[in-house]
């Protein structure tokens, strides 16, 4: 975001400083890219606590969960613009104290990471070391990343994964 409205050429035409500020704001939003806040792709994360299995599955608020409970994370990306937004690649961290339920990842994620920084193809991450893979167990996966997809205007795209709160009893602390 430019620091002063006078730096934006068309906003010269506003005589009042307020006008210039508003002009700068609108101008910046419309024409100059690269901001931290991006209102055009709304991103929403929801967490639900899963109880029961199969047809009897119930979802409740995940503000609290016990060790052994499964939390279902759903990320929804909504394109609020009138033009397609391309190559949306979602990243969902799996925080410490949670263990990923691999079969619950929808759609299948393309890459996983054990440190949140370096991403490796998921299949390779899980393959045993003797087979040329990393030999990582799903509970060690700390982030998932999905393949990029385009999101049409005013449409939405969502990804989800479930993770279980670690439940091994404390031996000694």
């Amino acid at each position, binding site marked *: 975001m*430019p*620091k002063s409205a006078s*730096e*934006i*050429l068309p906003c010269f035409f506003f005589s009042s400083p307020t006008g210039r500020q508003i002009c700068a704001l609108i101008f910046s939003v419309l*024409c*100059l*890219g*690269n901001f*931290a806040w*991006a209102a*055009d*792709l709304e*991103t*929403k*994360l929801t*967490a639900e606590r899963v109880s029961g299995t199969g047809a009897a599955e119930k979802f409740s608020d995940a*503000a*609290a969960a*016990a*060790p*052994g*409970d499964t*939390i279902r*994370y759903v*990320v929804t*990306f909504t394109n609020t*613009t009138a*033009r*397609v*937004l*391309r*190559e*949306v*690649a*979602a*990243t*969902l*961290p799996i*925080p*410490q*104290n*949670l*263990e990923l339920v691999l079969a619950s990842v929808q759609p299948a994620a393309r890459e996983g990471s*054990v440190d*949140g*920084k370096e991403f490796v193809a998921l299949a390779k991450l899980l393959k045993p070391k003797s087979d040329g893979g990393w030999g990582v167990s799903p*509970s*060690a996966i700390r982030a998932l990343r999905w393949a*990029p997809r385009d*999101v049409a205007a005013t449409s939405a795209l969502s990804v989800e994964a479930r993770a279980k*709160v*670690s*439940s*091994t*009893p*404390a*031996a*000694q*602390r």
Partner: protein
Amino acid sequence: MKTAPAPHLFASAVALTRRVLGLLICLSLLGITAETVRAAAPIAGTTIGNAASATYKDSSGTDRTTTSNTVTTVVQQVASFTIVANRTATVSPGGQVFFPHIVTNTGNGNETYTIGATNNATGDNFDLSGLTIYADADKNGIPDNNTAITTTGVLASGATFGFVVVGSAPGSVVTGNTSGVTVSAAGSIATIAQTNTDVATVTSNAVIAVTKASSANSGPSPSIAPHLTYTLTYTNTGNSAATDLTITDTIPTGLTFVAGSTLWSVSGATALTDADDAETAAPGIKVKFASGVLTAVVASVSPGQSGTLTFRASVNGSLAPSVINNTAQFLYTTGGTTTTNVPTNTVPFTVTGSPGVKLGPATGNDLMQTVASARPGETFSFTTNTVTNTGNGTDTFNMAFLTHTFPAGTTFAFFKNDGNTPLVDTNGDGIPDTGPLAAGATYNVTVKVTLPTTIPTTPAAPYTLNLEATSVTDPTKKDQGNDVLTAVAPLTVDLTNDAAASDAGTQLGEGAYAAGAPSVTNTVNPGITTRFTLFAYNPNTVADSYGLSASTVEDFSALSLPTGWSVVFRDTTGAIITSTGVISGGGNKQYYADVTVPAGQIPGDTDLYFRILSPTTSVGDRIKDRVTVNTVRELSLTPNNSGQTYPGGSVVYEHTLRNNGNVLEGNGTTSSIALTLADSLAGWTSITYYDTNGNGTLDAADAVVTNLNFSSGGTAGLDPGESVRLFTKIFAPAGAPNLAINSTTLTATTTNGSLTAAVPAVVTSTDTTSVVTGDLTLTKEQVLDANCDGNETAYSPAQLTTGAAPGACVKYRITVRNVGSTTSTEIKIYDTTPAFTTYIVAPAAAVSAGTVDTVPTVGAAGNFVFNIGSLASGASATATFTVKINP
């Protein structure tokens, strides 16, 4: 009879703990996080925070990042516990028996446990009297005090509580009698009770109890001298002596036996040797330490006698917070039989967590990273702010900005180690943090810095940013580091020809402007508009727009163009522009400079400088291009005239000779233009005059000329665009017959002097003079017959201006009319083929009345005589002939 003790459950629990512990320690030493082993349940109340993110391209193809809201989940409590272990012990009639137990809170939150001990109603021989539970905090198997308890009090997750169940055997029992006791524990949340079964067996033999104690139940890794002292206390509460009491103590992993530290209460301060030999200084005991096991054999313990064995062990370094358990075993011989190994109580040692943090390569406010330069408005990253967990357990570190010397308006933000996702708070205190890091693990925090778009000159770079990382477990453990931006690079813009500076390779005019050869030269004729293609490239990270200008002045102290020149800037759609419009950071714009060279521009090079300049940031660039104007040489001589005179008379015709080229012609130096005249009929003469006084009339002031060397317009010769008025005066000889037609051709021929370019084409004009006597009028007309087929009939007196090319034909028609009142007789028309033509039969010459007396030879120049004969008053006749222009 002794019941074989069955401590297998307890021992296997110990072994499992040891195995898991060993694995954890081994893995942490290898630097692999403990997450490769199933992680323990988080403590109740732990906050699990999460935020998702995505990268994408917006509608203009720019890379963007978006982050979601944060959701948090608080971990609830799940309660569980264990109670260990089933105990067996021997007891003398009337003696006391001690059963030690440990309750462990294996849930993830606080809980209180009720404990009790009751005699079993059946399955045994007698009941112990006075069953009481006492606390045993130091877990040495001996009650800490005389206070009976029924509860463990509040135990935190993972905490243990040691207690001892004490009972007395009646004096009447006999050897081999057994008594069973059920010890139970139940939690305030995990309310289902769990039990251990203890069995006391009466013996009249020696009854040895060995208990173990430690000088400290917790401490740091590594320990500080004199380290841990373990005390093994043995007592014979039986009625006969025990021999060869063998105590073995396996030093657990994580501890290191202090050599030669074993002492015996009987021998006092005399150190016992570790070697497998007799203790010369301490008869009655033999001690050896081999393969991690301390073995002591006390030769004999009398009834009622007790003693202690102590040894020291140090806690190894780099251990994660954990519990190290130590249990000894003992056996002895009594009444001719040797018991099997019985474990003592377990003494746990808790390795305490000692948090620590290092930010950067060293502790203290050390330099972490230097970025060489950044432009105003640019966002750049410091990517190697390395947080190291120097503690011995998993910890989370809050990140904060301290001071900085960057210009006002600079913003800073923390990002995860991927450099793109904002750093979030994971533990619920509202401060962004690294998330849990295992002991020894490192994490690179990225800091993104955005400079303001205008940066004042003071304070000057370099600029320093100070950061701090603080342990969440112990906020007094913190460390600082700093990052430096060395310089601010100026904003720049690059103006190039034909391709943008951002394209691969070096483009024309790339880089800042430097005087030198022009980048592009367009060579044109005068009167042409030529186009230069220009590109403006904005390499900064902020957008800007630039005004366009052109000048012949290199430094643009004036915006000037040569007289008659114009420069118009256009964009790629052809619209006229005066500015590039907004060019985003990293973007470029193509535009054109259309330069119009006026007609008559003299040949030579004209250097033009183009400039782009931002009115807001004053960033600009220039480029030098050149227009080279060709030499164009062309003359024109007009018009062709026609007139009449009488024999012996004269006619004056006017001509304009014009220099349509762009060089000075005919001044005798650059070139010479000769003016020559030729008359078609014999006897006719002609002279060329220059209208010296410029009045449009031939008079005495006008000079006779045979070339252009005369001065006109102030100088000799014709300047580009200059024209001179010439007169040709034609004299008809006195004997010229009536209706003779004479063509006078004025030719201007150029020869080079100092000029070297090809001379302009020869130009001519033709004046047609006819002789008319009396009342006859003579009119001559022509029509172009381009393909010489003779079909044209559209005669006109107008001069032929186009199409009279070599190889084409021209048809002439001469009309003679008797405008007098009487008949004219003996009318003859005389004419000749015009210069540069020959007579052709297409069709043949003809008259409408009379005869054709003379024609030139076909294919040759020559004379015509048309013998019309008589014409009555008002009558007319025509003569026609065709000529072909010399190829």
